[in-house]
């Protein structure tokens, strides 16, 4: 029912949508998070992701279970990158299949919003003149 992965290699959203095929599904919502070329007007060269892998997988699985409990998700696929991701690269893919579309939109938004708050993954922005851990300081 759930497909949760961390990967050092480029992500393929088709794998996530294929996993979500389900005869009882009426809709699948896919969120693809990509690397932007700037932050607050400053050019970003690339991002570097670090994860506490076993806990990141268990926390993402917890989110998928909550999507199942609250929105009746039939299938949930979450793939997240580690390591260097260049501009335009895919950092995360979240696919959620539910019987009716509204639940799929809500569950997918819940997963990405909560993932950013609870899943132990860290993102370093690398600029020409330095680097910074995103969100580290208030």
């Amino acid at each position, binding site marked *: 029912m759930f497909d949760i992965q961390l990967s050092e290699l480029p992500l393929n959203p088709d794998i996530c949508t294929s996993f979500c095929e389900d005869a009882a599904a009426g809709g699948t919502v896919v969120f693809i*998070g990509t690397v932007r070329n700037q932050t607050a007007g400053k050019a970003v060269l690339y991002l570097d*992701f*670090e*994860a*506490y892998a*076993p*806990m*990141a997988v*268990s926390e993402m699985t917890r989110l998928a279970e909550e999507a199942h409990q609250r929105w009746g998700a039939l299938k949930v696929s979450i793939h*997240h990158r580690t390591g260097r991701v260049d501009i335009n690269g895919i*950092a*995360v893919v979240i696919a959620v299949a539910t019987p009716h579309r509204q639940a799929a939109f809500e569950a997918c938004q819940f997963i*990405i919003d909560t*993932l*950013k*708050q*609870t*899943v*132990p*993954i*860290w*993102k*370093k922005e690398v600029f020409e003149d330095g680097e910074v*851990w*995103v*969100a*580290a*300081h*208030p």
Partner: protein
Amino acid sequence: MSLSILTFGIAKDITGSAVLEWPYDKPLTVGELQVQLLERYPAFRTLASLRLAVNKSYAGPDTPLYPGDEIALIPPVAGG
């Protein structure tokens, strides 16, 4: 005896080590360890948050710690 503490992201930069060996000579809770860590590494005070995970789950301040636990320092996360 000692505790092993995994560090990640900016917490690893601050401590300079991916694993801290922390003295454990009497029972210790998560909250007490956080106080000790802030004393040892004042730069942690500049972070937006610093949570601890015990055996791969977030742990509250009253959680007791034992040698052999998998303890991890979780600075502000930023996935996605």
